[in-house]
């Protein structure tokens, strides 16, 4: 079966605790010094935790002169580092800035959705670490599931999904009441 692994993200749950960011490093510590995940503060209003979105039409895949990227049947955008020549075209092509340059290897590096963990039936390290359930894993992100009605393809602060069709959905933020100091 062809699947599309993806992330379901609830900005209303994310408190920028960085557990996902460091858990990623903890998982991939042998090969990188940079986390594949980062927290983006959107106008001081809410946070997004972002990594590679394992897009349906990935720009990295399109621009790579060495054809180092592949799209797997489970939807993971995989990078074959033996092919990477470190040219860095993909780094600027990705609208989400999701790729890293690995200084140790002098090659591009990226989130592989913890495919080794997934083989063992475990969740990606970042999702496993998320104590607020802001970041969830879905087997087939855009298929018809109960959560579809209450999720959207993008929120403010996230690059338009039209170009690359990223494998992430968002639970829209609720309106909050904020009473600022009367000074």
């Amino acid at each position, binding site marked *: 079966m062809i699947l599309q692994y993806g992330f379901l993200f609830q900005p209303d749950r994310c*408190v*920028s*605790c960085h557990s996902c960011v460091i858990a990623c490093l903890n998982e991939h510590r042998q090969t990188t010094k940079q986390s594949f995940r980062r927290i983006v503060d959107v106008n001081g209003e809410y946070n997004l935790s972002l990594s590679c979105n394992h897009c349906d039409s990935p720009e990295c895949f399109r621009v790579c002169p060495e054809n180092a990227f592949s799209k797997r049947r489970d939807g993971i955008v995989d990078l074959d580092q033996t092919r990477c020549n470190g040219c860095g075209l993909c780094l600027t092509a990705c609208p989400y800035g999701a790729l890293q340059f690995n200084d140790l290897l002098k090659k591009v590096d990226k989130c592989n959705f913890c495919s080794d963990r997934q083989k063992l039936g475990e969740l990606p390290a970042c999702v496993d670490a998320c104590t607020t359930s802001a970041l969830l894993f879905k087997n087939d992100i855009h298929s018809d599931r109960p959560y579809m009605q209450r999720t959207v393809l993008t929120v403010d602060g996230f690059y338009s999904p039209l170009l690359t069709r990223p494998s992430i959905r968002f639970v829209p933020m609720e309106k909050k009441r904020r*009473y*600022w100091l009367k000074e």
Partner: protein
Amino acid sequence: MMEEEVTLYKNVCPRNCFSTCSMITHVKAGKVVKVVGDPSHGFTKGKLCAKGYGYSQYVNSPERLKYPLMQTKRGSGNWQRITWDEAYDIISEKMVALRNRHGSNQSLAYNKFSGNLGLLHFAIEGLFESFGSHTKPVGNPCLGTGRQALKYNLPFEYSPPPEEMAYAKLVVIWGSNPARTNIQQMKFIHAARDQGAKLIVIDPIFTETAKVADMYIQIRPGTDGLLAMGLTKRLVDSALVEEWELRKQISGWDHYADILRNLDMKEVCEETGVCEEAIAELTSLYGTRTPVATWIGYGLQRRKMSVQNVRAIDALVTVSGNRFIKRGGLYYFHPEVENMPLKILKDNNQKNEQNREVNINHFASELLKLDDPPVEFLWIHSRNPLSQDQNIREWDRLMSQLEMVVVSDVTMSHTAKMADIVLPATTQFEEMDLHVSYWNHWLSYNQKAIEPVYEAKSDLQVARELAMKLNEKQPGFSRFPVELEAKDWIEKEVTDEVKENYSIKSWQDLIEKPAHFRSQFEEFQQILKAKPKPFTFFSKKAVEDGLSPFPIYQRDRENANHPFLLLTPQSLLKLHSQFGQVDWFEAYESSFDIKINREVGKQIGVETGDVLVVYNEQGDMEGLVELDASTPKNVVIMNQAGKEPVNALISTRLESYPGKESPELSSPFFDIYVSLRKGGVRR
């Protein structure tokens, strides 16, 4: 190539934090390679905070102290590696000489607080107890004021199991930021919200917790008690509570009702900065939702008058009918560490001599005053007072006058740099221990996962070996039972009472999974029922302590010399001064040191990224400033544990209450006033 096998161990994070997480440690070839959460712990539920996920770097850090070191001339940086035997020789020689010089052990003192909360870390205190009367710190600089406040209103302490917050219909957080300091709690709060509960955050700072709250109420620092009174007044006015019932339950109710009747709501709004609409909305939530979980944060009780603020919030919780209620209640502090037997400390006080006790909040200045005999030897462990205490300048003075300073730590802390002898301490991965939490109700066992890194030793091991050395030099100096190992102390600590409380047959049950304290709810409910008017809104004890008898707001004195209030919350990826050695975190630390309101920045002439100088009589500190729209205009925010300790600006003697210095009260760390000026260009 065959991968070397990974062995799993159970560890407990011993940091001074609400969560006391159970962790699973992956060990390969004798090294910690990965640390993750332990799903068998009902509060942790298999998750850790970012710091926890960085533990493999913490334990393997090149910054770890590897060997005992001796510094010739304190503070010179002239360090020399010595053997443990040499260290014990030098230390014991001095201890014996001082005892003989003064005919007493009171010139020997130690200082310890919360660097490692493991119960076996009381071993050094146990060692000092085994000498007979000595000089020791007492008190709690962190959360004592709030505890005392709650005791005026109610004679016993109870903070419910925090997992139950998941069933509340309203969660109100006053002055706490669990997003940064108690991340494990957020999942229970979100679970409650999934069932329709609302989350309210009341805080002067627009924290990450405030960002996700259904309602955020920004409040002027130190005025929470007045807001609580306003809410209580509105509750009574709107007849959302029954006054005849309150009269039956609360001694002093009629007086308090009078005070509320005379409360001018316009003044409440003006002084707290909270508008009438917010008060109305929160009143309606407190009055119509049940059960309500109210959480009073420690940040709220770090000012001189905050004892009254905590009392007033507690009064609101009581009046709204939520003080003792299933799945709701008041969350503050679970005092379990005081209820544990602490055998390693108490069993060693065999001579039952009275120690010379020193208020931990003013330790350095008090120690300097002592004579007959003066303190000449100081042992500091599980603490970094030269970074974290309120009176750093006094500490510098003390350090320059002592004959010997011994510091044990994991890395070369600010305090260790001023020692004569530095001893490398083990982390939780290298020793056996037992843990309770001051928030959740779990008891957990910490396995030894690896051998000590380099020559590090646990406090217990040091206590045993030093006791032997002392007794060699002077037979009978210490009665510390050197033959007992960590396992033996854990076995002793898990007494029949502990087994009953935690429903375990033996301590070994804890290897499989942590154990939860039995429910105390019914027991406390019975006490309440048996007592006529169990809640006290007229406290004679408070009057004796120089406070109002009533749980009413009393305004903090402002500082005429400096217009800005300095708030120093925790950094995200540090805990106090700990975790600095984890290089993974560097990329995620804020590049700014100081945060102020944009309009204040404009007046001073600084923009985000400029150098700002924060100063008062104690000195000045400069850093990169970040301007924002939400920080109150009279507030300066500097996180703890920057490159230079921000506590240098607090180097003054502060009273916990007006006119009162009790070791049982918190250090008023948020009662510091500063001025600002634009700094020079940074190279």
